[in-house]
Structure formats: structure tokens, C-alpha cells
């Protein structure tokens, strides 16, 4: 009962039957007829990834959404109707990829930034120093120094810190959910940009050990690839409790995706399902979490920060407080719109809360409790541009994780079909024919460019506000004003309405 989602429009005057589209489409939409020297298309399998359209040398192709022939109905949208058709046929859970695409309020788009005018000078970052360097880790309550022969000497012992040249990191994406070339692009870009990337829960390919100082290694419920080398190699360890796209549920990497290389990295036999249970079975409480945090610290002789990643859910505020008290060095919070390689659609679209509200509430609570300095706060869940970075830091984050934005930099067109393993852009696939489309030599440069561009923009925005260090922006909500928000929302964000001084 399903009709094609997309329509392939081929301009016959332009098409030279070169078959680029035929070769590029892993979904076999385009077919070449040798007898007639004619390319035709069957849209039924088209996912709207725009690979063919982008690569068509004569611009003969246009991919459009098919106009739905359902009778107009504000309640029963085409997606809902088609979902039922699909489930009635298969009896299965609907799957999707990437972050929530539903029209919930995006608070970033209701927040506006401040700038200096007359009464305080703005700063030109091209002319004056501007500090974006960020340290992730537990900060002491006070710092004691002594004046010795060599000048001021720090007496306070400060725990392990991650040094970031700009407050942006690449979010957890496992080798398995994305290709090796995508992982390598992220690792090299992290090194080149002086930031870190995150292995996700799939282990670390030995050839990426060389990027260890720029690597955060995850320890998730399946404990895949977690062995002593892995713990030793990474710069920091992250206990993954949940992710924004699918809070509260585990993950299944189906056996057919566990290829020889993936099997070596996850350290499980080829072809078996890689199941990540919904909870860690050794963590049923904050006390248990503390136990694992310190097990990891003991296993690495207290040399590395240990963070905890959680999804933004209703009780995220007391949970964050508990995580700080459990001894974590940072907490990464992933909001409602955080991406995924595969998640049940109904979970992705309905579970969790937006990152803007979560960060504002966590920052306020940790300050009230006097423990904000004890933990760094990393925001994730659809940071789309440098404006979002500045806004979320002003709401209280120390740094951000970007996943979707990084993949878009590598060519992702957000078709949301990551879970099929047929990514035509060579990102969310393990098919060697497709993965070679992503050249890590270019991929890392594109990511590096993105980080450079955002960093320059952040400096411009900071300078405009008259601020010369990102430190001074953190939790500085006076630099934010709300538009189109009700009083409760403004209150939850801790932000004044635009127009109020």
C-alpha cells in the first residue's frame, strides 16, 4: 500500500545516459537499458539522499518529495498512515536514523544573543587575543598557590583535564554505525583541530590507536572492545548510560553488519548480533555508577577523566547532580534531537527533553548546590551551527558534542536511512563499494574546516559581546534574550524576554 516517497525527475534533454546515477545508487533506483541506451528510474526504493542528483554531471536529475495523494488531514499525516501500512505488513518496530525530525519547539531559535553598543566596547578578534581554550574535568573548590623562588607555584592538586582548543568535540559514533573512513576522518580532524572525538560503544580499531590523545573511549552496557589496551590508549573514558535519540533502550547491531573488521574491533565473533542491554547490569543506582567510575579510575591509575553520558530525560537535573557527586569528571547530556544510526521511530520522536532546557536546569541546580565546579557539562543533541554553540554555553554548558553536524560536513544529506547500511555517501555503511566514496584525506579536512569556521564565528560573537574568553560566557544568561516564549519557558531557561534590560 506504500507509494514512493520521492519522485525522480530526469530531464531527457540533459541526460546523456552516462550511468553515474546507476552506479551511485545503492538502492538500485536507476536502471540502464543497454539495448535502448536509456536510463530509467524506479522511485519505490528512493530514500531521498540526493547522491545521484549531486553527482549527475549534466544536472539532469531532480529528486522531489512525492505530493501525497491522501486527503488533507491535520491529524493523520502521511507519515503516520504510511507507518501503519508498513507495520501491518511486517509486524515490526519502525526504525529510523538521525535525530528527531518532529516539529517540537527548537529553543535555540527563540533565543537571541547580545552585543555591545556604545556603553562597552566590542572586541575585534582579528586584532586582539580571544580565548576559546576549554578544559574538561573536575575543578577544585579553591586554588592555593605559594610564592617560591620560581614565582607563583600551584599547590592544589588538580585532577586530570582534557584540553580543547575550541569548546567543540565530535560526538560518540561507533565503528559499525559509521564506516572506518568516517571514523578515521573524525580522529584525524580531532588531532588537527586540537579537540577530541569519541569512539562510541564499538571499540577502537587498532590503526586508530595513534590518535589516542584525541580519543574518548566509551564503556557502554555491552562493554564491546573494552580491554586494557583500549582503556590505556584513550585520553578519557566515558560511561555511556544513554543517548538522546533512544533514552532508556539498548542497541542491536544486527549480525550481518558484524563483518570481520567490526568483529575484530568489538571483539565478538563475526556475524553474531552485538547486543547492548538497556541498562548496565552492574549499574542500578548512583552508588553503582560511582563504583564503575572508580573502577575505571583504578584501571587507569587516576590519569584520565571519566565522564558519563546520559540522555536528557525528565529527571535529568537530580540525575546530573548524582553523577557529579558520584565522582565523574564530566557529564555529557544528549537532548531530544540527538542523532543515531538506528532507533525505533516512536522512541526517537517521543522520548526525552530538548537540550536547551536540560542544560539550563542542570547548570542552575549544580550552582545552587555549590558543585558546578566539580564537573564539566557537555551539551549534545543537535548543535547545528556556531550560534547554537554560543547559546548553549551561555545557558551553562562547558562544551558541545557534535554528531549530525560533523556527518553533514562529511556529506550526509539527512535521509534518515542510516539503519539500512546502504548509505550512498559512504558514511553509515560497511559496504566497501560505498565506504570508499568517503576519502578520509578530504573528510578530515572538511571537518577541520568546519571546526575552524565555527571557532572564528564564536570569536566574532564573543567579541561583539565585549567578551574575550569563552570562560566568561559560560552560564552567562544575561547575554541571552527570549522571543516567542511563555513566562514558564523563560523561567526554565533562566532568560529574560527580549526588550527587558
Amino acid at each position, binding site marked *: 500500500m506504500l507509494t514512493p516517497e520521492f519522485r525522480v525527475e530526469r530531464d531527457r534533454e540533459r541526460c546523456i545516459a552516462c550511468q553515474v546515477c546507476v552506479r551511485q545508487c545503492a538502492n538500485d533506483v536507476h536502471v540502464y537499458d543497454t539495448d535502448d541506451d536509456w536510463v530509467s528510474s524506479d522511485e519505490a526504493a528512493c530514500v531521498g539522499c540526493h547522491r545521484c542528483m549531486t553527482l549527475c554531471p549534466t544536472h539532469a536529475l531532480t529528486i522531489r518529495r512525492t505530493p501525497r495523494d491522501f486527503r488533507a488531514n491535520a491529524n493523520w499525516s502521511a507519515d503516520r498512515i504510511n507507518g501503519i501500512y*508498513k*507495520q501491518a*505488513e*511486517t*509486524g*515490526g*518496530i*519502525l*526504525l529510523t536514523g538521525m535525530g528527531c525530525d518532529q516539529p517540537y519547539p527548537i529553543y535555540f531559535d527563540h533565543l537571541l544573543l547580545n552585543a555591545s553598543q556604545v556603553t562597552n566596547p566590542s572586541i575585534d578578534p582579528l586584532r586582539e587575543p580571544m580565548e576559546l581554550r576549554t578544559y574538561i574535568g573536575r575543578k577544585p573548590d579553591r586554588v592555593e598557590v605559594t610564592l617560591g623562588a620560581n614565582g607563583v607555584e600551584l599547590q592544589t592538586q588538580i585532577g586530570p583535564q582534557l584540553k580543547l582548543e575550541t569548546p567543540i568535540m565530535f560526538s560518540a559514533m561507533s565503528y559499525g554505525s559509521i564506516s572506518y573512513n568516517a571514523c578515521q576522518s573524525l580522529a584525524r580532524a580531532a588531532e588537527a583541530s586540537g579537540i577530541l572525538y569519541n569512539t562510541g560503544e564499538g571499540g577502537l580499531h587498532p590503526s586508530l590507536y595513534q590518535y589516542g590523545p584525541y580519543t574518548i573511549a566509551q*564503556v557502554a*552496557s*555491552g*562493554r564491546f572492545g*573494552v*580491554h*586494557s589496551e583500549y*582503556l590505556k590508549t584513550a585520553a578519557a573514558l566515558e560511561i555511556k548510560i544513554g543517548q538522546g535519540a533512544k533514552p532508556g533502550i539498548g542497541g*542491536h547491531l*544486527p*549480525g550481518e553488519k558484524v563483518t570481520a573488521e567490526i*568483529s575484530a574491533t568489538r*571483539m*565478538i*565473533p563475526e*556475524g*553474531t*548480533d552485538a*547486543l547492548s*542491554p538497556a541498562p548496565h*547490569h*552492574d549499574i542500578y543506582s548512583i552508588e553503582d555508577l560511582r*563504583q*564503575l567510575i*572508580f*573502577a*575505571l579510575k*583504578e*584501571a*587507569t*591509575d587516576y590519569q584520565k577523566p571519566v565522564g558519563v553520558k546520559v540522555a536528557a530525560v525528565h529527571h535529568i537535573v537530580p540525575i546530573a547532580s548524582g553523577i557529579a557527586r558520584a565522582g565523574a569528571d564530566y557529564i555529557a547530556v544528549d537532548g531530544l534531537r540527538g542523532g543515531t544510526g538506528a532507533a525505533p521511530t516512536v522512541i526517537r520522536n517521543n522520548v526525552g527533553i530538548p537540550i536547551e532546557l536540560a542544560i539550563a536546569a542542570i547548570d542552575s541546580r549544580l550552582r545552587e548546590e555549590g558543585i558546578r565546579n566539580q564537573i564539566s557539562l557537555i551539551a549534545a543533541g543537535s548543535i547545528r551551527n556556531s550560534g547554537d554553540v554560543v547559546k548553549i554555553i551561555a545557558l551553562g554548558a562547558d562544551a558541545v558534542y557534535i554528531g549530525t553536524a560533523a556527518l553533514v560536513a562529511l556529506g550526509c544529506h539527512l535521509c534518515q536511512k542510516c*539503519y*539500512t547500511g546502504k548509505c550512498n555517501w559512504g558514511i553509515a555503511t560497511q559496504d566497501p563499494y560505498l565506504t570508499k566514496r568517503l576519502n578520509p584525506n578530504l573528510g578530515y579536512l572538511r571537518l577541520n574546516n568546519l571546526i575552524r569556521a565555527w571557532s572564528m564565528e564564536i570569536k566574532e560573537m564573543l567579541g561583539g559581546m565585549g567578551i574575550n574568553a569563552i570562560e566568561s560566557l559560560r552560564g552567562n544568561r544575561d547575554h541571552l534574550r527570549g522571543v516567542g516564549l511563555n513566562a514558564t519557558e523563560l523561567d526554565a531557561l533562566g532568560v529574560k524576554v527580549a526588550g527587558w534590560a
Partner: protein
Amino acid sequence: MSALRIDANGLHYRELNARLREVVTDARVTHIDLDNVYGQRYLGTDLHRAVQIDIHGTPGNDLAAFMDGPRIIVHGNAQDGCGNTMNGGEIIIHGSAGDVTGHSMRGGKIWVRDNVGYRVGIHMKEYLETHPTIVIGGTAQHFLGEYMAGGVLVVMGLNLAPGERHIANFVGTGMHGGKMYLRGEVDDYQLGKGVGRVPLDDADHILLHTLATEYAALFGVDVQTIFSQPFVKLAPLSLRPYGRLYAY
């Protein structure tokens, strides 16, 4: 110098583990006795070589978590999380062990003379030549071998009375790899979804004989007693227990 005694009395686990790290840097140290251990956690975690540690007293949670190399002998009981995500080495417990023993264990061996708690051997996994093994002389609580993905889990029920069943329910729920052997009675209702009984073959008999002989030698039990009752072998019915969940 080969043997060394450390009095753990009054030491916080962090101090005790720092001391252990320090002493194992001396390659001549092959054997350490820890006296007066009262609940110190994470013993043996970060040592990375084959040193023998005899624990006198009661070690705390996460004994040998992430461990890679040492041989730990506990002269008494162990607490929860023993052998958590353990990589290699051996733990021998002259008593019982608590919950989540051998959680996500990847290699090495755990021998428990008596009983274990809940969720033991969850998500054990094997890869190439690394096969984790847990042998339990007594019985286990619920969720034994849940999500088990590899390795060998043996529960011998030596302390069960004749005709007395194992008490664990949901045995091997979500199991998709590895082998589990239970000596003694277990009813079908006690087994988790996706797990079934399979007949023992020659390789199983050889494996069980090897493990039983080693258990007998470690704890002073007669091997004949162990084989006085047959073993039941449990194995996953599918490597893809959750294969038909989704609409593609």
C-alpha cells in the same frame, strides 16, 4: 624476594591499590599475601602481569575489574562485581561470590567453590582464542548467563540435596553465544527465552572433565562426586535472538 605480605588493615582501597601497583613494578615479586582485607574494592585491577595475590579476609566490590594477568585467591567470600569486564587472569574463591560475578567477562577464569548471586556471567563474550570461563561449585540466583555471547559457564550444584532443583529463573535470557552447563535438576520454566537444552558431545565431555578435575584439585573435592550426576547443556537457539523485531 618473591613473596610479600601487605597488611591491608585500615588502608583505603586507593592506598592499597597504589601499594599493589608499586610492588608489582618489581619483576621479582611473584606472590603477594594481603592480610586483613576488609571490603577494599578493585583489588588486582591495574596490575597487568601474572602475579599471585592471596587475599585473607573479604575483598570488596569489583574485585579484579578489568583485570589482565594476575591470579587472585580469595580465602573467604567475594562481594559483588567480581571479575567485572575482566580480560585475563584467574580468580579462585574459597567461598561464595556476590551479584554480577563475571559481568561482560572477556577472558580468564573464575572459580567459585560455593554459590553466586544474581546476574552472574551476564554478557560474557569470547573472541578468537580468548574464552572466559566461570565454574561455580554450588548454585546461582536468577538471570544466570543473561545476554551471554560467548565463553563457558558451569554451575555444578554440588551443595544441592538429591532431587533439589537449581533456584535460578530466567537462565540465559537473550543468550546468543557460548555454552552453559548445569549439573543437577533444572525445569524448562526456569530457562529464559531463546535458550534450549542440547545433547552433550565429546568436546563437551572433555571440557567438563578438564574443568571438573581442576575444580576438584583446587577445592579438594572428589571428581567422582562431580560426575555422580549428569550435566545439562544449554545453548542459544539462535545467534539472532532479536532478528525479527524491526520493519525495514
